[in-house]
Structure formats: C-alpha cells, structure tokens
C-alpha cells in the first residue's frame, strides 16, 4: 500500500510540472500586458512616463526572457514563495491563505451535502423503484444535472433573498466569527455548488443499487430472513458505493470549477472570484498559484478515491 501511494505521489509530481508549464505559457499567450492593465486601472495611462512602466516591469521580473521567468517562478515555489500579485501588490502566498479557506469551506460543505443527499436519494429511489418517491425524485435529478449554476444562483437570490427576504443575498462571514450569519450566507451558494453532486450521485447510486439488487448474494441475504434494512444497509450499500465514490472524486473538480461562477454571483471573496478577476487583470502569478493549488487538490482527491476502493472492496489490492 505504501509503495503504491509513493508511486502515485511521484506520478502526481510529473502531472504538476506539466500543469505549471501549461498554465505559465498559456497565460503569456493571451494578448495584453498586465503592467499596462494595472497602470490603466490606477492612473491615467497617458500620464505615466515610460520609465515608470519599465521600472514596474522590472520589479515583477517581466523584463526577463520567458524561460528565465519560468525558472524563477518554479524556484520560488520550492522555497515557498509564490511571487507578488501585480494587482494587489501583495504576497501571493498570503493572498492564498486569505482566500482559500473560504473556497475550501464552501467546497467541503457542498461535497458533504452532495454525498449525503445524493446517496440517500439514490438509495430510496432504488428501493422504492417505480413508487411515487422515485417518480418525483428521479426526474428532478435531470434538472439538477442540467441547470446552469449561475442561473440557479440568480433565481435563488431573487426568490429567497429579494422576494422572501429569508437569506442574505451575498457576502461571506467566517463561521468562526459569526456561525449563524455564516450559515445563512452559505446556504444558497452551497445549494448551487452541491446540486450537481446531489443529482449525479443520486442517479449513479440508484442505478448501481438496482444493479446490486439483482445479484445472487442479495437473494442469499433475503433467503437468510434478514429484514429490508439489513439487506440494504449491510449487503447492498458498500457494494453500490464504488461507482458513486468515483463520481464524488469527479465532483470535486466540478465544484471547484463551479465556485468560479458561484462566488461571482454571491460576491464571495474566495479563490473562484479571485481567479476570474486575476485572469481579466492578467495577474500571472495569482492565476498560476490558484491553478497549481487546484491541481494539487484534484490529484490528492483522486488518490484518496483510489485508496477508498480498496477499503470498499476487499478484492482490490494495491501493491
């Protein structure tokens, strides 16, 4: 098992280096100049002398050849230095520490909501296949899979924020500062982020439960005189979970992607909204840092998913 994990981590390192290469060079292929964008936003561009602009460019190391810039950036990362944001004039590492906890908070909540409600809905619709519950919930999962999150966010804000006034329409408060306000603020964004996971997990769980229901060992379980609860929870659940766990791994990347939109809609100062503004501002190092951290998270999640297979199914062994 340890050998397997070490091997996977080495593979992950290779993937990460590829990610740094791609994000670094693709960002620089985009038309535009981050220094000019920054200057244009803070002062009159015409009034700025060329020397000052060159000075700024040198300050951020953007005057050097592109390969040297890449080497400097990579060297910085290994020292724990992610560089300095052009726009915020702030250390990127500090910026990440401010913004990432917010996104992680939303992502974890969405993941948990998606897992619990998705698996529950899938189990119930499978066990009550063809009954009214199944007939209502299963069509709803199509809606969950297809609805665009930004549209859903706006609809929710309109309904629950503006019309009913039940929930705050935007903003974010740390749960450590004001737990009640924080919870009320995250309900709608988490709903938006989790809906895909709930729907996808429910559908996958339903179909894999139905598959498991037909297995011989389930007939054996019934033949032992076990009740429905024991048959479902002991004999079906673990067997049905493997494809769902795979999907949960995938849904982490979907939630992180969705956070870009959802944080925008609900004005949440997480990395999602930071990523959007940094791309528009061509704030190279910030985009690079966020992408890199996203990549690390997704690689780790995939590793955890693969390890959990062995826990779910004793026939799977890693060596």
């Amino acid at each position: 098992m340890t050998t397997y994990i070490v091997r996977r981590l080495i593979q992950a390192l290779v993937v990460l280096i590829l990610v740094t290469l791609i994000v670094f060079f693709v960002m620089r292929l985009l038309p535009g100049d981050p220094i000019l964008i920054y200057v244009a936003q803070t002062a009159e561009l015409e009034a700025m002398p060329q020397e000052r602009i060159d000075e700024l460019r040198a300050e951020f190391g953007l005057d050097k050849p592109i390969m040297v810039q890449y080497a400097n950036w990579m060297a910085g990362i290994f020292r724990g230095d992610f560089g300095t944001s052009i726009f915020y004039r702030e250390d990127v590492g500090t910026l990440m520490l401010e913004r990432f906890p917010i996104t992680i908070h939303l992502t974890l909540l969405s993941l948990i909501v998606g897992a619990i409600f998705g698996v529950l809905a899938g189990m119930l619709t499978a066990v009550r296949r063809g009954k009214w519950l199944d007939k209502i919930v299963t069509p709803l999962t199509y809606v969950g899979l297809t609805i665009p999150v930004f549209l859903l966010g706006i609809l929710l804000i309109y309904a629950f924020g503006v019309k009913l006034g039940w929930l705050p329409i935007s903003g974010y408060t740390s749960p450590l500062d004001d737990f009640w306000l924080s919870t009320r603020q995250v309900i709608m964004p988490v709903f938006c982020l989790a809906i895909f996971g709930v729907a996808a997990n429910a559908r996958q769980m339903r179909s894999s439960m139905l598959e498991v229901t037909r297995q011989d060992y389930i007939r054996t379980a019934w033949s032992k005189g076990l009740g429905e609860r024991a048959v479902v929870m002991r004999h079906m659940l673990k067997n049905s979970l493997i494809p769902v766990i795979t999907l949960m791994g995938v849904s982490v990347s979907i939630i992180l992607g969705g956070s870009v939109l959802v944080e925008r809609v609900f004005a949440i100062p997480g990395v999602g909204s930071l990523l959007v503004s940094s791309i528009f501002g061509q704030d190279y190092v910030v985009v690079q840092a966020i992408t890199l951290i996203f990549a690390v998270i997704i690689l780790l999640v995939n590793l955890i998913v693969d390890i959990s297979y062995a826990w779910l199914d004793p026939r799977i062994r890693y060596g």
Partner: protein
Amino acid sequence: MPSIPGSEAYSSDKEKSMAELLKVENLKTQFHTEGGVVKAVDGISYHIDEREIIGLVGESGCGKSVSQLSVMQLISTPGEIVGGEVIFEGQDLLKYKTHGPEMRSVRGAKIAMIFQEPMTSLNPVLTINQQLTEMLELHLGMSKKVARERAIELLGMVGIPSAHNRIDDYPHQFSGGMRQRVMIAMALSCSPKILIADEPTTALDVTTQAQLLELMKDMVERFKASLVIVTHNLGVVARYAQRIYIMYAGRIVEEGTIKDIFGKPRHPYTIGLLKCIPRLDEEEGRKLVPIEGLPPNLINMPPTCAFLPRCSYKVERCFQEPWPPLKRLHDRHYISCYANTEEKTGEPTER
C-alpha cells in the same frame, strides 16, 4: 375427467404421511414479460416428510428453481405467485407478507436454501464471519462472540481446515467448492427443518460435486433436516434421494420412489431422460438417445400435454384432451400421461 381403470386421482386419496413437513398444493408462479405471461410453475403439488431427501428433476427452464424460490417467497418482479398453498407447520406460507416478520422468521431459520452459483452467492465485501453470524444473531439471538464461536464450529463441520484462521477471510479467498461448503454451513446454522439445495453442485467440477453431495447428506442427517435437491442431473439424485419428482414445462409429470423412477419409469419424458444417461449395469455399445426437439415456450402453452411434440408414445387421446393430472399407478408412483408406456418401456425408440 374420465377415470382410467386401476388409477385414482392424485390428491383425493393419497395416503397421508404422519410426519409430513411441507406440503405444496397447486402452486402457480408466473412472470409478466413483454412477450406475454410465462407460466414458469403451473400448478405443482408435492410434499416432503421429516428427514426425507427428495429430488426435483427437470431440464433448464422447467420451473424447478422457480418453484423452490416461490416456497421461500423469493420471487421478485416481474414474477408473481398467482395461486396455490405452501403448508408448513400448519400455516400457509403464501398468506404471509413477502418481507413480513412471519415469513422472515421462517426464511433461514426453518427453511434454508443453497443456491447454484457459489461464486456469486456470497457477498464479496463481507467476511465469512459477518455473513455466517448475522443469521445466528438474528434468529437465535446469539451475542457476537458466541455467534463467532458457533460459526467457527460450523465451518469445521463442513470441512474447512483451520476454520478459526479462515473465518475473517473474504469469499474471494475461497475456492468454489469451499464457498459452497460455507453456504451449506450458513444454511444449516440455525438448524432449519428443510434445506433446499438449488442445483448445489452444477457449477462445480465433478470430484467436488461428489464430496459436496456426501457432505450435504451427512449434514442434513446430523441436523435432522429434510433435503430438497433441485437438479437437472438424475445421477445426482439417484444416490441420495428417497423420492423423485420429474418436472416438465412447469408441471410435475412423474413422481415416485427411486426404485420406481429408475426401475420402472412410466412417463415418456422420464423414459427419455434415462435413455440419455449412460449406466454401468448395461451391455456395452448401447447408444445414448437424446430426447428430440426442444422444450416448449412457456408463454403460449397449448392446452394439451406440453411434451406431446417430443413424445414417441403419443396416442390419439393426447391430441384431444388437456394435460392429464397426476394419476396413481401404485403405492407412491404417479404419472401424468394418457399413453400406455408400460409395454414399450426398455425398448429403444425407432429412430
């Protein structure tokens, strides 16, 4: 129904055994499919006495497994038990709700079942211990610790070497034969009155088959249980069963003791079955004769005898009258046939 001299109707005055344990009367199970209604079990009646071993023999798709699953109420949609009675300990099991507490207290505890596929009949993600003890805890109210001790003991009885080391293994760490042994241990763990073995050895190799049948026989003797062996292989039941029921197209066509069935088979189907298995006590060079044709489609069954198109004994009456009910030949030997098969028995069919 016109009566035939020397025979009585099946159910009217059949001698009642004092120790009759399970009595199935006119059981009907159907499957509702897109193509139509499949009459998988079409009114079968049989019984089993205490500590008796019976065989239920027929080819694939004749409804033998379905009939046993119906007794356990393990038929799932689109299947449905549409009629009949299953009398066990004075109660009609079919009156119980499928997953109600009464039925569940019978299933596993009083009537247990072993299935055809040992490779897939055990849950792959639970240990042998978990799968063996859950029944002991449920039906006998044992604690986890006591149940584990008992489970190890049971595994030892069915011949799993060093059972205390193997108890926490998963099914995939066992071979097919070993898994079927585990299934036998599991089925007998709550000392059921009846053990139903649905093609228990079909998926195993021949040497293992013999061992397992011996084991099953010893075990039911030890647990004082009755045994129903469901098989398509007459050879399997020949050694162990006391009485045999021959099924064809959802019905029982012949019933009798081992001596009756193997010595004086009377239904054309049974005669056909026996002609296609080799015997050691016969002259060399006899050709094995397969039964011509195919079993009927169970959806559009003719009102006449379903074996008619394949039968070499057919008489005029077979075409005109519906499938005859079982009639008594003598003692415990019954057949469902109009033809006089006695004369031709033993002669090879002209081909």
